[in-house]
Structure formats: structure tokens, C-alpha cells
């Protein structure tokens, strides 16, 4: 049964890839072939992963041949990631059948559909590979195909630049992954993951494996300071692809981090957890700080992904610390919080990226300052987008709230370890998480308030239209899930608990009536009760409005502007102005710069026009990457001395090398 489901999903993605190429000449047919097959494949994926997680049969394996020992190994952890990938794929594929109409007649749809299917298949392979060599092949496949997807609109120069940054960063990451796998393989004598987990590795080498894996997978996960590719690559890719990249691709790195830290390296050392916790806190804060001041919607969402990966890492770091301290129960709670946020993020970030795609689809701009008033032009999309905004802002009873509450609670549980350093580190992390949450609320309030409310700020926004129904359906699926994941944690947590049991311990959650969740410390929370209370209590003011003193009359009049006629879009508050207080408060982080150019007519007393420009500095790019790039280029220039371009010289090099190698072999190499 499991075997059939797994082959089913592989086959449908392959059919999707092949058929979209076959129907290449017919845009519409090709897009349906690609995305509907992917959707069917994802349904297989969902069934398969649920069957693995809920089944007693622990894992699922396909052995390779004796010559190439490549195969698949799916335990509950892998199955969870297949589930996350498949849910995202289902919604995004439905959305894509509508979204790619944008490209009909302009771009090659067959090529996009082919890459899309292979990309998803490669992600599923990444989380189910059972062997380091196999893993590196599919990992590289995933990176390269996502690179091709990023540069899909390669006629734009900024897209090509984004692709370049992405491919460089991802290969730096792959280099470190290779190093850590080589150490593991050296110690265990085999490349299979199974042998890795039992390998006897000296402590110092263990630390190296940990660090290399953290850097390698951290580059893909977008951990600060390895995050710089996200804000380039995610906006450059087509929005349906960004939804997948940001929603699920970067999570495959989290899968491998869990695999390496808990499975391969066994019970870790305390400081590993602290390092992950610190990186999580820094990523969360830096990510959201950049997101707050960003006006490009998709770039903002990319920065926000960095923030959410930070929150996921906070939970993971806490889990590692508990695990190293020998407390698997608490470790499980933190791990559940982390995986819960991962699941939520894949849903609401996918939703928001698709929402951004819808905005681009109907206005052809992703600049927030040019939008406005979309709530009237795109009523359904705006409600769906709003659900995503409420979820990502962690407002009760939506999904982000549950996972953030659990993360905070697991940080609070750190006090039961009675370790001074843990207590201080966890308190600071909680404060950072609170600040991150508040800034995220500000950021998404700004996005929705400026983008969707009030008056349109440009012609494009003025003429926006509601998007087509497949797009609404795809977003609607995610919007429903964001609400369900918020309101029904009582069904999600036992499910996640089964998954983390395989690498930590039992989370000892208890569940009460009204969907109440009680953690081991005795703290409880019930989002269904909160939802019911909010809805019922909202009736009270509604009754006052409607019933008190006869009928409700609401005369409509223009917006108050101190007596001035100000009801024009030019007088509206802008997104930049909205986030300006934060920019001023944290000026030393943003290093804001401004340019004001004034043109005069006749004399300096008569201003003709004033042009105001402001920008913020990407400090990591400026102070970390720019010097590094400079040194690399300088180094290359020096090495270039031996690159003469003359065949004779190269032959001489080969000769000299051979002589040295011979000498080595003859003299001491035996």
C-alpha cells in the first residue's frame, strides 16, 4: 500500500514533467498537464505520509541494487516533510493553473511545468534519501532546478543577478554539507545514513560535523548571515515558485538539521543548542527588521521567511538544549513547537506569496506604495490575504498564535532545568521573540493597510480586477488551513507528537474539553474557546449598534482632513512613513540614507519639483560579503598570474606536476 502510494506520487510528477514538455506548443494544455498531474501527485504524497505517520509500521524502505546502494528511507520525520511539501504543492498547483495565464504567449509554459514537477519531486527525494551520495545528487538537483526556476524571467537583468547570488550561496552551502558528510562517512566507513547514525565519532570531529552541517544547511535555510540570497531569489522567481521555495524548499534544510543533530550525532552537546538558539534569535530579529522597512511585497515576504525560520530554529535550539540536558520530554515539547511553526509557516507564507502573486497578476506591480484600495477591487483575494496576515502576525485564534505560544511556553519550561545560563538565554530569546512578533504585526499591518485599504495610489491599482477562480481556490485552501491549524491544535499536536517521538521523547501533552491543550508545566490554552468567546462577545457591541435607540443610520461623508478637501490618494499615509518610527528607532541597524534633489524654476525661491529618495543599508552585504568578495577577487587576480593563456605554459605545468607526483610516489608515498 505505502509502496504503491510512493510510486504513485513519483509517477505522477514524472508524467507531469513529461506531458508538459510534450504539449509544449499548446500553452493551456501544457499548463493543465503540468499542474494537475502535480496536484494528483501531491494527493498521493499526502495519503502516503499520513499512512506512514499514523501507521504502526515504523518506516518505509526501498533498497537499491547491490552495485548502487541508493534507496529511499521514510520514517515519520521524513513523512512529515513529505506531508508539508505535498500540502503546499496541492494548493500551489491549483493556483498555478490560473497564475501561469500571465505567461501565455510570452514564455515557454512547457519548460516551467517540467521544472516545476521535477523540482517538487527532487524535494521529496531530498527528504527520503537514505544515502549521502544519493542525497547530494538530489540536493544538487533541487538547487539547480530551483535556480532555473528563479531565472525563469531571465530577460530582466535583476533576475539574472538574483540567480547568480542564489547559485553561489547554495553551492557554498553544498560544499560544507559535503565536508560534514565526508567526516561522517570517514568515521562510519559507509555512505548510508543508517551507518551514520550509529557511527563512533571523536568529540572534536562531532563538533566539526555539527558546524559544517549548520553552515551548509543554514545557507539553504536562510539563517543570518547566510540569508542574503533569499531577498533576491524569492522575488525574482514566478510567484507560484516563490510560494514553494519559501514555503517548503527552505524547510528541507530544517529536515536535514534535525536528521544530523538528533539522528546522526546522537545526544549532542549543550553549546550546539545555544548556538542554534542564538542564530534563531538573530535571524528572527534581523529578518523582520528588514521586512518592516521593505516596500517590495515579495522582498518583504522573503525577509519575513528569514524571520520565521528564526522562530523555527528557536524551538529547535531549545529542543536541542533540553535533549542535551537529558530531558527528552521537554525536548519533545520544544520540537513540537518548532515543527508546528514550520507547518504553519509553509501554509501562511505560501498563502501570502500566492496573494502577492495575485496582486502582481492584476496590477503588474509589487511596489506597495503603488497599491491601495484593493479590498474593493479584489474582495475575495483580500479576505484570503487577510487570513494570511492575521496568521503570520500571530493573532489569536489563527495558526501563528498557537505555534508562537508553544515556542514561548517551551522557552519558559527552560526554567525547570535550573541552569542559570539556560534561564538567561531563554529569557532573552523570549524577549527577542516578543519583539519579533510585534514588528511582524507592524509589518503585515502595513502591508495590508497600505496595499488593500483606502484609495488606490496608482493607475494600475485603480484598474485591478479580481483574479480567476483557480487562483482563489488555491489560496482558499491555504486560508482554510491557516484557520484550522489555529483552531484545532488539539488534533495537530498529537500528530506532531508522534513524529517527534522518533527522535526526542514523548511530549506529555494533555488535552481537555473545548480543545484545551495543557503542557507539562500546567499552562493551558484553548483557541476554540477563544474563537467562540470572541465571536459571541462581538455580538454585544453589534446589538448595541443595531438596537440601541432605534435604527442605525450611517451618513457617508468625505474623510476628515481639518476642513481641507484631502480625499485624494496623494494625501494618504505611505508604507515608508508607516515604518519610519522603527527605522528611526533602530537607525544604527538600518543606516538609512536619503537623497533630496530639488529643481528650481526662475530663482531659488521658486521650487519646481522635489524628489525624495530614501534607502536602508543591508549591513550584512556591506560589511561581511562585500569585503569577502573583494578578497576572493583579489586572490583570484593573484592566482591569475599562472593563467598565461599559452598552451606551452600549461603543458609545462602538467609536466612539473607529474614530476612532483612521481617523486612523491617514489620517495615516500608507499
Amino acid at each position: 500500500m505505502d509502496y504503491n502510494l510512493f510510486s504513485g506520487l513519483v509517477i505522477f510528477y514524472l508524467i507531469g514533467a513529461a506531458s508538459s514538455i510534450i504539449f509544449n506548443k499548446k500553452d493551456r494544455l501544457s499548463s493543465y498537464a503540468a499542474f494537475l498531474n502535480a496536484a494528483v501527485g501531491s494527493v498521493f504524497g499526502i495519503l502516503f505520509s499520513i499512512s506512514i505517520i499514523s501507521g504502526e509500521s515504523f518506516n518505509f524502505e526501498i533498497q537499491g541494487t547491490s552495485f548502487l546502494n541508493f534507496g529511499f528511507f521514510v520514517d515519520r520525520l521524513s513523512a512529515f516533510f513529505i506531508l508539508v511539501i505535498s500540502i503546499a504543492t496541492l494548493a500551489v498547483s491549483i493556483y498555478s493553473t490560473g497564475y501561469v495565464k500571465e505567461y501565455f504567449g510570452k514564455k515557454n509554459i512547457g519548460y516551467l511545468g517540467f521544472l516545476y514537477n521535477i523540482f517538487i519531486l527532487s524535494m521529496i527525494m531530498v527528504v527520503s534519501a537514505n544515502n549521502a551520495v544519493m542525497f547530494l545528487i538530489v540536493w544538487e538537483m533541487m538547487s539547480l532546478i530551483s535556480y532555473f526556476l528563479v531565472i525563469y524571467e531571465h530577460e530582466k537583468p535583476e533576475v539574472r543577478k538574483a540567480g547568480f547570488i542564489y547559485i553561489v550561496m547554495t553551492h557554498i552551502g553544498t560544499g560544507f554539507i559535503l565536508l560534514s558528510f565526508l567526516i561522517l562517512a570517514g568515521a562510519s566507513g559507509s555512505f548510508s545514513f543508517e551507518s551514520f547514525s550509529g557511527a563512533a565519532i571523536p568529540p572534536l570531529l562531532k563538533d566539526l560535523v555539527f558546524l559544517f552541517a549548520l553552515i551548509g544547511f543554514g545557507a539553504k535555510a536562510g539563517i543570518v548571515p547566510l540569508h542574503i540570497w533569499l531577498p533576491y531569489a524569492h522575488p525574482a522567481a514566478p510567484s507560484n515558485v516563490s510560494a514553494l521555495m519559501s514555503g517548503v524548499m527552505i524547510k528541507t534544510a530544517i529536515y536535514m538539521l534535525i536528521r544530523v543533530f538528533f539522528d546522526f550525532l546522537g545526544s549532542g552537546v549543550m553549546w550546539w543548542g545555544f548556538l542554534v538558539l542564538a542564530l534563531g534569535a538573530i535571524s528572527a530579529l534581523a529578518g523582520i527588521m528588514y521586512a518592516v522597512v521593505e516596500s517590495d511585497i515579495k522582498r518583504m515576504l522573503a525577509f519575513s521567511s528569514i524571520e520565521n525560520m528564526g522562530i523555527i530554529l528557536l524551538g529547535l535550539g531549545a529542543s536541542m538544549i533540553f535533549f542535551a540536558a537529558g530531558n527528552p520530554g521537554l525536548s519533545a515539547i520544544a520540537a513540537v513547537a518548532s515543527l508546528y511553526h514550520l507547518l504553519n509557516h509553509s501554509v501562511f507564507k505560501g498563502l501570502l506569496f500566492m496573494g502577492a502573486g495575485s496582486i502582481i497578476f492584476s496590477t503588474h506591480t509589487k511596489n506597495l506604495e503603488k497599491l491601495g484600495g484593493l479590498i474593493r477591487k479584489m474582495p475575495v483575494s483580500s479576505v484570503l490575504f487577510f487570513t494570511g496576515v492575521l496568521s503570520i502576525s500571530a493573532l489569536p485564534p489563527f495558526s501563528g498564535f498557537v505555534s508562537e505560544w508553544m515556542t514561548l511556553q517551551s522557552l519558559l519550561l527552560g526554567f525547570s532545568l535550573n541552569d542559570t545560563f539556560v534561564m538567561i538565554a531563554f529569557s532573552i530569546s523570549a524577549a527577542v521573540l516578543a519583539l519579533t512578533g510585534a514588528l511582524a504585526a507592524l509589518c503585515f499591518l502595513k502591508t495590508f493597510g497600505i496595499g488593500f485599504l483606502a484609495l488606490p495610489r496608482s493607475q494600475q491599482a485603480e484598474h485591478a480586477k479580481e483574479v480567476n477562480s483557480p487562483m482563489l481556490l488555491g489560496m482558499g485552501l491555504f486560508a482554510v488551513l491557516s484557520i484550522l491549524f489555529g483552531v484545532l491544535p488539539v488534533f495537530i499536536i498529537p500528530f506532531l507528537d508522534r513524529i517527534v517521538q522518533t527522535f526526542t521523547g514523548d511530549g506529555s501533552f494533555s488535552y481537555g474539553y473545548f480543545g484545551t491543550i495543557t503542557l507539562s508545566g500546567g499552562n493551558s490554552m484553548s483557541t476554540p474557546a477563544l474563537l467562540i468567546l470572541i465571536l459571541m462577545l462581538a455580538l454585544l457591541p453589534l446589538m448595541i449598534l443595531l438596537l440601541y435607540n432605534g435604527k442605525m443610520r450611517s451618513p457617508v461623508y468625505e474623510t476628515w482632513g481639518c476642513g481641507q478637501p484631502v480625499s485624494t490618494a496623494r494625501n494618504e499615509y505611505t508604507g515608508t512613513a508607516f515604518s519610519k518610527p522603527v527605522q528611526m528607532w533602530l537607525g544604527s541597524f538600518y543606516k538609512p540614507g536619503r537623497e533630496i534633489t530639488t529643481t528650481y524654476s526662475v530663482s531659488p525661491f521658486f521650487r519646481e519639483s522635489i524628489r525624495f529618495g530614501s534607502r536602508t543599508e543591508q549591513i550584512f552585504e556591506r560589511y561581511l560579503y562585500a569585503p569577502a568578495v573583494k578578497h576572493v577577487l583579489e586572490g583570484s587576480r593573484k592566482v591569475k598570474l599562472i593563467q598565461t593563456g599559452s598552451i606551452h605554459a600549461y603543458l609545462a605545468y602538467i609536466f612539473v606536476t607529474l614530476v612532483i607526483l612521481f617523486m612523491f610516489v617514489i620517495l615516500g608515498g608507499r
Partner: protein
Amino acid sequence: MLTQIMLAIFQILIIIALAPLLSGIIKKVKAFFQIRKGPSIFQPYYDIAKLLRKDSVVSENVSWIFYASPLVSFAAILTAGLLIPIFISDIPFGFAGDLIAVVYLFALARFFTALASLDAGSSFGGMGGSREMFVASLVEPAMMLSIFAVAVYAGSTNLGSISQTVSNLGIDAMSPSYLLAFVAFFIIAIAETGRIPVDNPATHLELTMIHEAMILEYSGKQLAIVELAAMMKLLLVFSLLASIFFPWGMDAAGIPAALGIYLIKIAILGVAMAVVETSTAKWRLFRLPELMSISLMLSFLALISFIIVKGG
């Protein structure tokens, strides 16, 4: 079950009924310090009754958000009110959320109010919404640290059990960590409810206002709802302080006596707030980070002193 629901309804009625009175008392005490006679302490009731009789003039640019926002804010604040012990510590809906959930419910109310501020397309609204969310970003870290200080002190984040633990401790509760956390929380309470020196609730001058700028477009019945919600929030933040830091006398003496004690506690906190408001000037917006870092440091010290006491 029925008594539980009756208790919950009773608590809702108490909150709605007392909220305007607290604002009235604060105004009266402020007037006293300013050597004015000041309006009657029942003036806020008259104001709300007057607003409820008026039509709501609505901007032509607004969407459904503008209509939904007062309802959601009101409901979110009242829901938070059901999670805070007022006159009994074993509150009926205590299971539904803890201290952290209360903070997030306030955030929900704030989010909708700030969103509505952008809906009419006026610059005033945007300015108010932007400042409100900015102040919230300053408040949240300090708030979370003081929640942690309180939670590790009482061993729970559920407000009912915090109240029980602290009131069982009696006078032993007066430890350094407890006092530091209280001062930190009081500063947060000022910021959270938009009082001087953070925001001036009495002014409509665009340079100084935060909350009033956000709700500038509301009028009539809707304004009555919005104003009542703000008063309820003030009352609830005070109740939160009372239930965490002086929960004494809540369960012992029966409901009428407990209600009397609650009234006295709230009145004392109201007078304290009025004293703070008359003795300080409103701070510039960009000096607020200093105020909130004081609160942050105090909560951190509260945590550290707890750790030292516990460890040693």
C-alpha cells in the same frame, strides 16, 4: 456549568459597568491636582450615552474593516477580561488562555484598531496607527520579560494559579524580584493603555496623539463602542496588575466583599496613575525607547534576582 456561565456573564457586566467609572475617577483626581473642579466621575457614562444617541458619520473611502474593527477590538478585550481573575481566582474560562494569551488578545484588538485607522485614507489615521504599532513593538519585549519574571515566580502563566500562589504566599511575596517586576509592569501598563508620558488621552493635537489619531474617523455609536473598549482595556490592565501583584482578599470573603476589595484596589491604582500623569510631562515619541528599556531592564533584573535567590 450553569453557575460557571453565570459567573462569566457577571464578570463581563462588572467590566463593562466599571470601566467608565475608572476613567472618571482618574480624570477627577487629575483635576484635583491641577486645582480644578473637574467633571463628575460619572461623566464618561454621560459621554457614552450621548454618543450612543448619535448617528455614525462614515468616510466614503472605508471598507468592511472599518465596520468590523470596533466589534473585534471590543470582543477581543472582553475575551481577555474573561481570562483575568477579578473577584474570584478560579475563573470559569481560565483554561482558555493564560497571561500570554491575554497579551496576544490585546494585540488582536490593537491590530484591528490600527488597521481601521488606515482605512479612511487620512494621514492622521496612518500616523496614529504607525505610532501605536511602534509603541507596541517597544512594549512587547519588556512585557514578555516581565511575564517570564512573574511566571517563574508563581510557577505558571495561568492567571488564576498566579493569583492563588501569590495570595497564599502572603507577605512573603514581597521579594525583590516581585517588586522589580511590579514596577516594570506598571510602566508597561502606562504604555499599553496610552497614558502620559507615552500618549495623552486628553488631546486631539495631531503632534502628540496616538490613540485619538487612530480613531479620528469614528463617530456616534461606533465611537461609543471604541471609547468603551479603550476604557475596558484600562480597567483590565489594572485588574491584571491587581490580580498578579495584590491578589489578596479575592477568594476568602465571598463575592460581595471580594468585589469591594477589587474596587478599592482599582481605585488606588487609578489614583496612582493620576499622580504619575500629573507629575510627568508627555515624552517625545522617540524618547519612549528609553522608558521601555527601563522597564526591560527592571524585568530582567527581576528575573536575575529570582535566579540568584533560587540558585543560592
